[in-house]
């Protein structure tokens, strides 16, 4: 226990006690000057990571561009060839028009120069400038991610916890089966099954983002598009009918993602909880009469969460990169759908942008995960 004035008590004890050192609790007692230097070090750490991110993005873009240049110009022009009726001389003219025959470094620096000017190029698959395509597709994906991710994590943590606590009992068996099934099911199969049952059979939860009438409102003159997220914008525009309509359409793809992706969190949480439950301090705390709920929820789960946080970060980043199959089946064209099309049709401007975007997402998520680690586990020092 460090001495110093003034003291700030931080962290938690198993139960109220005058001598916390008897129970090996995790806590930190910090002086105010110590806290200030910690904040500075954290800020430095974040700035360093952000600067590093720029280097990473540059490196990734160079690597991907180099690989793309291995593909002959005659194939890279395919993004602009919409029909087999186009004769070879016109295809040659297109290759010349888009500079696809220029040396690779020339093409790369031309692309880089445009980036610095804010021109990300034209995406043949988005049928629009790349930035416009991003503004169109990203909110669709983001909205689905914002609704599904918290549910995935909460459901996974909750069921994983229950499974661990009720180990080898019927609840645990059911949860394990659910996890295995959820993890094994192909996305397209579950998605189509849900669509066939709910939409095809029951006539509820249609695909798409909005109904025809709601679409007319959203694209009408009285609508303020602030975020591009339909439910959020509906609240901002104070249109609860549109909000409910959007929710109605997002329900099924959300259910699809929750069933599939909470499985991994469930399994991880369960095994992590079981490991934590086997620790001496837990046995001691329970033997000393601490309530189960307090032990499990306040201490065990907190320690068991660390690997789950890492996976959740990866999961979130993966969802943000897009859910091609979910987006295609439920007719919600987002980043995933766009990226898949861009890759298949060799839409180079879109591919390059998406590489940068994905790099940003993964680096950003890693940073956030590290910060959360530090917040949860005071033993972790950043920088």
């Amino acid at each position: 226990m460090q001495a110093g004035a003034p003291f700030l008590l931080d962290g938690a004890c198993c139960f109220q006690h005058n001598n916390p050192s008897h129970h090996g609790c995790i806590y930190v007692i910090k002086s105010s000057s110590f806290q200030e230097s910690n904040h500075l070090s954290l800020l430095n750490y974040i700035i360093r990571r952000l600067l590093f991110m720029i280097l990473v993005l540059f490196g990734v873009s160079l690597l991907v561009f180099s690989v793309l240049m291995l593909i002959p110009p005659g194939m890279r022009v395919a993004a602009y060839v919409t029909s087999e009726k186009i004769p070879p001389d016109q295809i040659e003219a297109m290759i010349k028009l888009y500079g696809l025959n220029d040396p690779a470094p020339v093409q790369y620096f031309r692309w880089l120069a445009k980036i610095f000017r804010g021109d990300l190029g034209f995406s043949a698959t988005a049928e629009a400038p790349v930035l416009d395509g991003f503004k169109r597709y990203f909110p669709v994906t983001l909205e689905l991610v914002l609704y599904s991710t918290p549910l995935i994590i909460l459901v996974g943590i909750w069921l994983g916890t229950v499974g661990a606590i009720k180990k080898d009992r019927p609840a645990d068996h059911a949860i394990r089966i659910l996890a295995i099934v959820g993890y094994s099911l192909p996305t397209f199969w579950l998605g189509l099954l849900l669509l066939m049952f709910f939409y095809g059979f029951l006539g509820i939860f249609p695909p798409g983002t909005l109904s025809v009438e709601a679409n007319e409102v959203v694209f009408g003159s009285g609508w303020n598009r602030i975020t591009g997220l339909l439910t959020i914008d509906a609240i901002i525009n104070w249109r609860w009918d549109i909000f409910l309509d959007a929710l109605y359409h997002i329900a099924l793809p959300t259910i699809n993602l929750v069933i599939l992706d909470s499985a991994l969190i469930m399994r991880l949480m369960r095994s992590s909880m079981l490991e934590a439950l086997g620790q001496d301090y837990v046995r001691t705390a329970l033997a000393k009469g601490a309530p189960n709920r307090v032990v499990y929820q306040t201490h065990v789960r907190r320690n068991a969460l660390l690997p789950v946080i890492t996976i959740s970060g990866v999961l979130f980043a993966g969802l943000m990169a897009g859910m091609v199959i979910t987006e295609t089946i439920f007719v919600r064209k987002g980043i995933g759908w766009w990226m898949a099309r861009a890759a298949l049709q060799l839409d180079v401007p879109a591919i390059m942008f998406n590489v940068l975007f994905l790099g940003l997402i993964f680096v950003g998520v890693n940073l956030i995960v590290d910060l959360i680690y530090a917040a949860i586990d005071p033993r972790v020092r950043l920088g």
Partner: protein
Amino acid sequence: MKKILVLLMVLAVAATAFAGGKGEEAPAVEEAPKKVVEEKVIKNPDTFIWSSYGTVDSLDPAKAYDNASGGCIYNIYETLMYFKGSSTEELEAQLTTQIPSVANGLITNGGKTYRFPISKGVKFHSGNELTPEVVAYSFKRHLVTDPDGGPMWMVFEPLFGTYGSRDGDGNIVLTMDMLDKAIQVQGDSVVFNLAQSFAPFLSILTYNCVSVIDKDFAIANGDWNGTAADIARVNGPEEGKEPLYEIASGTGPYKLARWDKGNEVVFERFEDYWGPKPAIARAIYRIVEEWSTRKLMLLQGDVDRGRVDPMYFEEMRKEPGLKVYQKNARLANAGINYNMKITSVDNPAIGSGKLDGRGIPADFFSDKDVRLGFTYAFDFETMLREIVKGNGIPAATPICSGLPFFNPQLKGYPFDLKKAEEHLKKAWGGKLWQNGFEFDMLFNTGNEVREQTLKMMAENVTSLNPKFKINVRGVEWATYVDMQRQRLMPVYYIGWGADYPDPHNFAYPYQHSQGLFASRTGYNNPEVDKLIEEGATEADPAKRKAIYYKLQDMWLEDVIGIMLYQPVDDFYFKDWVKGFVFHPMQNDPVMFKQFSKGY
């Protein structure tokens, strides 16, 4: 007990997992007959939703050369005339008051001058008026814009005897002088002066690439200002930079409300339309790529028409609540062409490049016996029955049924493995049979019809001699395009849909040495070239008939390739849809003005 419970749960899940099966219908449960009259609810009664999977490339008439774009353009813009009903020969006036003919004196100068009196009182969506000057500007503007990969070549051909506004080095060769001579305003008419008499000219003027646009609207939005000095600025624009790429003001029955790219195009009824107002106030072309989703949306009535591919015709014909228009023959065809001049440099498709049993030489198919051998080994009946599932009309030559001067008496080569063997034994002086060969046949991934057709052909040919090896493999679209451009493929599976309903539109690409397919395969018969050029410029129908009959005979004599079939299509609508009239050249989507909804 616990184990039994677990086992039961696993079995239950497994049962659900396999319940999907192959889409077979569960045995019908007989219900007691219902006498209650069900109230039929029509979803979205003021909106017609057409669903398919083709993406819209551009709304600029000078650029659009795909089905989806063309279909949208036909709803917004109009041409001087269009086909009447489902006819591919009878025209009716739209923005002109009379269809030119020799009889009414509007075609003169030996078929080189066409006069179109322009309708009065027609408004654009912007409120501007249609005038002859606007019509003349439209045509000139499309010719000046002439984007790469667009359809303007078909207008250049009759007007100037060329195929574009730029030469091989990309320099603009089109001048204001040329435009002013070819397209003139004379009083209340627009006059076209052709480079030479061109029989299909009127048909060409129905294509979306000559849609009449709103001049003032176009110029106000950065389009060509009509002067010589401005030609270079707008000529050959990059993808997405065509002036009318995503904005529109036409005279059509629908105006463009919005284009939500990749998702849908929304049209609103034009209340000041000069003709009969459409019954439906709003129309939507919605892109739904996943077949199962599209099917469910059609069955649920959330779309009024869903595109159904041929492999699903059988299952959809059994579904309730639909109106089905079956077996409509399109003005299109599919075939296999033999490449007689394969590019041999860096070409993995031809193996060793020699007739040594491990490859083929670049001129492998230049031997007529090889071509005959492959042709006799093709089983048309099995292909039509098993692969196309009866959704095709056998085609002997590129000129298909429904076109003028189609020869219905002609039959293709029969399936005869003995004759195939005979010709392959003669081929290359016997060396082919002795040494064998190996090469690749390629199809674009995802195209099941092409894949199965080529596999069937390969199987029949290789069954004749164990030394014959043919590898059928799929390649991605980008690779496919590149290999076509470089003439790397030993055989091409090709398809052509009519740009205009005239045999010239089919004979030229398939048989003229400069045509799209013939040039790819190295086919060059000066007699055929001459006949094709004569056929286009000949005004006398009897003489044209003789020419195109001869061309059809020569296709079979020269065995350039195998024409496979002319596709027939089903169209599936919700049962509340009325008014559909099939046209063999229709796009996807079609013109929405024909539809209404009700029981």
